[in-house]
């Protein structure tokens, strides 16, 4: 008989073996999918790995793809610490992108450093503001934050679309004839273009560095401050926290705002680092927010692991873009990401529980005696 019982302690080696093992299982399952549909798995994987990390310029592109994922991953990880599910990373990213673009357009004549700082702040404010809506509803009306945040993603996406595709506001450049057919956002001024550095031939954008800095900050906050301690207590046992006199509502608002701000800075970095315009199609097709939740879960809510896993998944995503074409199956990257997630989720069981193979011992009478 197989018995599943809760582990009382989690051995350290498990935290390494389980993620590595689940990655291996995910690759095996992807190989099965590929083989079943008549593609050579080995060849396809080699091309993927090559395009993600080895080819000329591949690392730079992977860092680029990883940057928004790191931010949305941090966004989810911050909220998860308190057992809050902030599924609005997606919408908060949009809100951040909108406000950061506004800041850049309004302040374009100021010096670059000021404009960039304003963009970061505006992005953070946008994300935080949107995050506070479900935060307030949760804190004061105890409305489930999961579904409200999910729904607000779509509202934010539609606002973004409206600003670019439907309004006659100055967001939209209608001065050229093409604009009427396929209107695009206004280009951001040069002073709103974020700098980047080259390290051993790898292009590192400002946004990625901000992401690492943010991860360090979150780690400090959660492991070294009273605030972080209280957040964890509230997450583990809201009742105990209330008895201890912790201000639960305030913490919910603070954590939601912080988490939204992380995604919002991600949106600002999309404007400043990469797209240089407000790009609703590109932003909403990429699904950064949902990937962020997955990354946070894979990283087991450790901020540094979030950045690392964002880099790995970003590499995979980047390879998908690079290889997209007739001979490379489209949709494969999504399938692989999904499989990695599934196996990581399944492996969680092994971390929390242990499986025992044992023969059932004298059942009936023992139970009666116990009852």
């Amino acid at each position: 008989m197989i018995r599943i019982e809760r582990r009382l302690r989690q051995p350290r080696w498990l935290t390494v073996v389980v993620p590595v093992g689940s990655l291996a299982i995910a690759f095996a399952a992807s190989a099965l999918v590929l083989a079943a549909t008549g593609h050579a798995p080995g060849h396809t994987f080699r091309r993927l790995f090559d395009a993600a990390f080895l080819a000329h310029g591949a690392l730079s592109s992977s860092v680029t793809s990883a940057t928004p994922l790191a931010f949305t991953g941090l966004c989810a990880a911050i909220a998860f610490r308190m057992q809050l599910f902030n599924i609005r990373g997606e919408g908060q990213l949009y809100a951040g992108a909108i406000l950061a673009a506004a800041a850049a357009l309004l302040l374009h004549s100021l010096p670059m450093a000021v404009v960039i700082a304003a963009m970061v702040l505006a992005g953070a404010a946008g994300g935080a503001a949107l995050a506070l809506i479900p935060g307030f509803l949760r804190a004061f009306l105890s409305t489930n934050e999961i579904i409200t945040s999910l729904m607000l993603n779509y509202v934010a996406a539609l606002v973004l679309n409206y600003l670019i595709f439907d309004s006659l506001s100055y967001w939209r450049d209608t001065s050229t004839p093409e604009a009427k057919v396929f209107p695009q956002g206004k280009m951001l001024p040069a002073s709103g273009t974020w700098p980047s550095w080259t390290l051993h031939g790898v292009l590192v954008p400002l946004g990625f560095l901000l992401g690492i800095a943010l991860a360090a900050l979150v780690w400090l906050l959660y492991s070294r401050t009273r605030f972080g301690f209280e957040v964890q207590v509230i997450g583990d046992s809201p009742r105990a926290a209330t008895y201890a006199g912790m201000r639960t509502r305030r913490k919910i608002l603070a954590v939601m705002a912080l988490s939204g701000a992380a995604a919002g800075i991600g949106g600002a970095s999309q404007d400043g680092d990469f797209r240089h315009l407000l790009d609703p199609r590109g932003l909403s097709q990429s699904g950064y927010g949902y990937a962020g939740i997955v990354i946070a879960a894979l990283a087991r809510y450790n901020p540094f692991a979030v950045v690392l896993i964002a880099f790995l998944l970003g590499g995979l995503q980047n390879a998908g873009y690079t290889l997209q074409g007739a001979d490379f199956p489209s949709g494969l990257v999504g399938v692989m990401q999904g499989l990695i997630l599934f196996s990581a989720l399944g492996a969680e069981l092994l971390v929390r529980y242990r499986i025992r193979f044992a023969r059932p011992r004298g059942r009936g009478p023992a139970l009666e005696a116990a009852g």
Partner: protein
Amino acid sequence: MNNSILVVVLASAVVYGTPLLYAALGELLAERSGVLNLGVEGMMLVGAVMGFWAVQRIDGSGSAVLALALGVAALAGASMALIHAFLVVTLRANQIVSGLALTIFAGAAGLSSYLGNDLHLADSPAKHAFHPVAPSSLQDLPVVGPVIFGQSVLVYASWVCVLAVAFYLARTRPGLNLRAVGESPAAADAMGINVTRYRYAHTLAGGAFAGLGGATFSLAITPQWVDGLTSGAGWIAIALVIFAFWRPGLCLVGAYFFGAFAALPFTLQSRGVTVAPELFQSLPYVMTVLVLVLVSSAGARRRLGAPASLGLPYVREER
């Protein structure tokens, strides 16, 4: 008269509401058993692509092929739901993360796109599609002609499904057992109900319904395959279940209500009235948030709210 704006909007509300209705009925069954499945969009897309594949590749008379295609779509949706059920029921994984993972795995940039690409389904119209079945004399009747008689079999079948699900939940033993599992799995277990089996069965049924909803897109509304065909209908279906307070009859009303929002901008545009479509498209989401706020007061939650164990794994040893 049948060209008046009200009739046109009503008729298209039924058309666009039908896939929402199927998917929402499925999600309702899963949620009533305590399993929240956020992978509806992914399951719909896989159902849509496999249903379309069946229509393109199976030879035979139109109606037989279409019936078979619906079966394939339901099976495809259910097999996606099986992954979710295994992870959340057997392995006790987090339902939210698993559902989102299912959307990433199966969704617009995942398996559905992979299959559509690998089976060469894009850029060709469907060989068979669902069309209105009523005689044209009935279709020409004022108001009810286009709204009721101008619809395909899928619409009428969805009404049967609403009745069947409502009857199942309120009047049959398995249906009552299902509600017990969703409200209090520990009590249901003590009664001798197999919680695991009920959760698996209804999550799979939810997937099958989502697959049918997807096939409604690829075989009736826009009879073709493009990546991301359902364009977010799965998320609206999740909203719809809440909007309908987990009741099948209200799902029907809500589906047509939300369907009208989807159809209204196009109808207005063809009459020369320009309204931002985003305004109408965002209404279902905004209204769902409002409904959620309304039902979150303690009293209302007890009478109207979600199944009490929604989202929680059931572990017998830890109850």
